[in-house]
């Protein structure tokens, strides 16, 4: 991180006639686009930048200096599982042999890639305790939507058209209800108890009232407060009895690796965020990958294409019967819910996730949940004197505080978050979950050392102290970052979303 703002736009560095590429010149020029009727051609050339190579390299290198990643420092962003992204995985995903594969080339010419794909499906099924996975979804929200489609396809197959409601705890992440709405489902909120867990009595009432209309219930477990839902088995049983399916939002799966599997808790459908639990880089917001897993009896509804392992028997005139075992891409099944993307998902991301699983192996994957959970509980116990802990007891991989204990200083969670930036930390997730007014959600992954966490705790205490001794310092933070707090209202009131528009204002 560089504390000085590098503010140029690439368009401002452009100068007519400059070039940042070189292409072969010896090609057959018999045909040119001038052959196309004028009515099919654009009137004016696109005003793209004209820059030499070094200008472009410096520009984006300088921009990167105004960014903060996991490699720069501790990134305790709750519910985002900001793990270390192993370098070897980037090397593997960048192998030319994978990067150069066309998705429609014959399966016999890409068995190695299909083997990775298939093995990752199988590995996730084992880790989740479910039957089969599709790797087609490109992100967590995409996975949620796909999973809900599976559930609707299941009810449709049983001609149970009345099931159009989905039960979602009020503590859920906003994506859950949004995915349900996109999938054409009606959202019904289930209340939470004071401790943030699902109000099972309220659930029971809802099921009594509208059980035959319930398509599914969506749950995150541990929930968005980092608390394991103690009555999860009862919940899944109640919903199943009413004829609904249970959807597991895999956002918080990291806590459970080694200790508990969604399939064993009674969930029927789930998604996993490979960019959280399986260490693939978040990339400033993507590309992610959100594989969806299902229990036995639902696999026929998964979206196509599907990668399958097959055994083919055929006769070679001189050698006699021969058996070929390999992998194929199956593009169509009648029972499938349809398709949800261009091809079969973000293969480049899958390579990294599979490399991660192989690096850890059976013996280390089971330590992930316990170590992440230990780190979170350690922070919880260490900071509860200065920060308000609204829910006592064990947390899982993340802990939620409700701002500072001392509310008299006027220092808010926003201020604490911004002050952390000054000290070289990314901020925790703030103002979520909505259950508390001053939520501060901290997630330290299993990759963080005791020294890193101790240093963070010391800084959090120091900020609590500053809030008392010099509240203005905290309220006006950050001070050591490339830019100060931004004017969100100005951005929304008079939207300037392109360089061209910026020239007008």
């Amino acid at each position, binding site marked *: 991180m560089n504390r000085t703002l590098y503010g140029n736009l690439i368009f401002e560095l452009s100068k007519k006639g400059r070039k940042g590429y070189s292409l072969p010149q010896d090609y057959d020029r018999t045909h*040119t686009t001038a052959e196309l009727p004028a009515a099919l051609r654009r009137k004016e050339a696109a005003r793209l930048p004209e820059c030499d190579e070094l200008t472009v390299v410096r520009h984006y290198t300088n921009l990167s*200096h105004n960014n903060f990643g996991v490699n720069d420092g501790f990134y305790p962003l709750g519910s985002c599982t900001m793990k270390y992204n192993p370098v070897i995985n980037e090397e593997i995903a960048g192998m*030319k042999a994978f990067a150069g594969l066309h998705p429609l080339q014959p399966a016999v010419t890409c068995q190695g890639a299909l083997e990775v794909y298939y093995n990752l499906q199988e590995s996730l099924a084992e880790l989740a305790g479910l039957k089969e996975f599709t790797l087609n979804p490109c992100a967590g929200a995409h996975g949620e939507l796909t999973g809900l489609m599976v559930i609707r396809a299941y009810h449709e197959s049983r001609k149970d058209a009345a099931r159009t409601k989905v039960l979602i705890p009020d503590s859920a992440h906003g994506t859950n209800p949004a995915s349900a709405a*996109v999938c054409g489902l009606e959202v019904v909120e289930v209340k939470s108890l004071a401790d943030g867990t699902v109000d099972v009595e309220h659930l029971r009432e809802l099921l009594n009232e509208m059980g035959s209309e319930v398509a599914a219930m969506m749950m995150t477990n541990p929930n968005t407060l980092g608390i394991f839902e103690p009555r999860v088995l009862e919940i899944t049983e109640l919903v199943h009895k009413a004829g609904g399916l249970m959807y597991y939002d895999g956002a918080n799966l990291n806590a459970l690796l080694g200790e*508990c599997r969604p399939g064993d808790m009674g969930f029927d459908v789930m998604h996993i965020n490979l960019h959280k639990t399986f260490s693939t880089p978040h990339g400033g917001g993507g590309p992610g990958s959100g594989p969806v897993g299902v229990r036995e009896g639902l696999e026929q509804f998964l979206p196509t294409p599907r990668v399958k392992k097959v055994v083919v028997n055929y006769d070679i005139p001189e050698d006699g019967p021969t058996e070929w075992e390999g992998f194929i891409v199956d593009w169509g099944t009648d029972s499938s819910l349809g398709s949800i993307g261009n091809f079969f998902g973000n293969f480049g991301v899958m390579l990294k996730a599979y490399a991660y699983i192989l*690096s850890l192996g059976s013996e280390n994957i089971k330590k992930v949940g316990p170590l992440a959970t230990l780190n979170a509980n350690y922070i919880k*116990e260490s900071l509860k004197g200065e920060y308000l802990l609204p829910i006592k007891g064990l947390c899982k991989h993340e802990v939620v505080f409700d701002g500072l204990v001392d509310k008299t200083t006027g220092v808010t969670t926003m201020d604490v978050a911004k002050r952390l930036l000054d000290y070289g930390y990314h901020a925790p997730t703030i103002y979520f979950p909505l259950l508390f007014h001053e939520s501060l959600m901290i997630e330290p992954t299993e990759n963080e050392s005791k020294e890193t966490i101790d240093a963070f705790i010391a800084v959090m205490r120091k900020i609590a102290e500053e809030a008392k001794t010099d509240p203005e310092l905290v309220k006006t933070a950050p001070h050591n970052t490339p830019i100060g707090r931004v004017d969100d209202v100005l*951005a929304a009131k008079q939207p300037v979303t392109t360089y061209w528009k910026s020239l007008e204002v």
Partner: protein
Amino acid sequence: MFKYFPHTEEDLQEMLKATGSKSVHDLFADIPEAARFKRDYELPEALSETDLRLFFEQLTALGNTQQLVCFAGAGCYDHYAPSVVQNLIQRSEFLTSYTPYQAEISQGTLHYIFEYQSMIAELTGMDIANASMYDGATATAEAAMMAWGNAKKANCVLVSETVDPKVRRVVETYAHFHGFPIKLVPAENGVLNRSALDKEIAEGGVAGLIVQQPNYFGIVEDYTGIADAIHEQKGIFVVNANPSDLAILKTPAEWGADVAVGEGQSLGIPMTFGGPGVGYMACTEKLMRKLPGRIVGQTLDNRGQRAFVLTLQAREQHIRRQKATSNICSNQSLMALYVTIYLSLMGKEGLREVAEMSYAGAHSLRDKLIATGKFKETFPGQPFFNEFCVDYEGDLDALLDECTANGYLAGVKVGEKTLMLAVTEQRSTEEIDELVEIIQEFKEEEAKV
């Protein structure tokens, strides 16, 4: 310990003591016994870095994974990208960061997204672009939902039959579950049948129309007059365009589109077996607040500096929950960065040069294939860009196998007799000639023996 776990035995003991637990498993005492996982995962044991590398090298060895000279397209193209692009996107400050919520330490990401939005707006001619989507197919499905959501009285969204069938299937899947009908407008000689379209529009209730440019078969269609007809019905005109070709082709805005979408993989992103690519989505200012996905805007910080920030968030799921314009949470940020750096280097002239070379190569290949006497043009007289269809008289599968055996991916089969081939600037005259030679010399009788 393991290389990604820093906890020593001493650390564990001190930390457990602070939490009042005897073992890490005590931290899971709140999980009901019946839900506990007590065995080992049935997964391979840990591989050392050396063995891991060896494992993947074996998977990519000859016989397992074959590099073919690529004449296939159908939504995924083998374009050149300057070496700089891959190098810069690997910078860990970009690669290992999250969605840019904390603007003060995310100007790098916010800044390049603003540049990306500007470039997409310029290529498509539209007013505003979002920060990117998963891929071209889902971006098109989002556009269909946008059209449906925007309509006051409508009973369907129209989709041209010349839209990529893979994209159509995604649109149909989303529409089915979201709850609105899709009507297919048939094609004639490889292009949208205008009288069939006029008939559909005359029936009324059209929320929107989705077309593709160049269309699935590579044909550059003439969409003159369509926007007006759709707008008369208060419907939305959606153009799915290949952004690489927009260096030359009439822009979606010039066709009168309300929404432009498409797959950005053709802007130099490696094929990587179909993903990750990047979907783009742009629209008119009028529809700005109905656009799904992240949007970055310009503003000022409290020091008076120009700064960038996520904006118009009142549309989004984390604020609006089930009332959001979409369930999309993030974008395809790193791939948007890829496109931004690619377009910065290629620039105004480079993208045109790519288009010219691809156009020239495809037309040269078409001429040479027809000259073999083995093919006929599938859609005679239709203008195309860098992808085209030809009909083969014999056994197309046998021909394709022969090409594969010689290291060539000779295109994508799109009908019993129809082969679709794409040419990019990556294909040399020598490769084009060799493919033609393999095809010329191929004799089916010999292959069958």
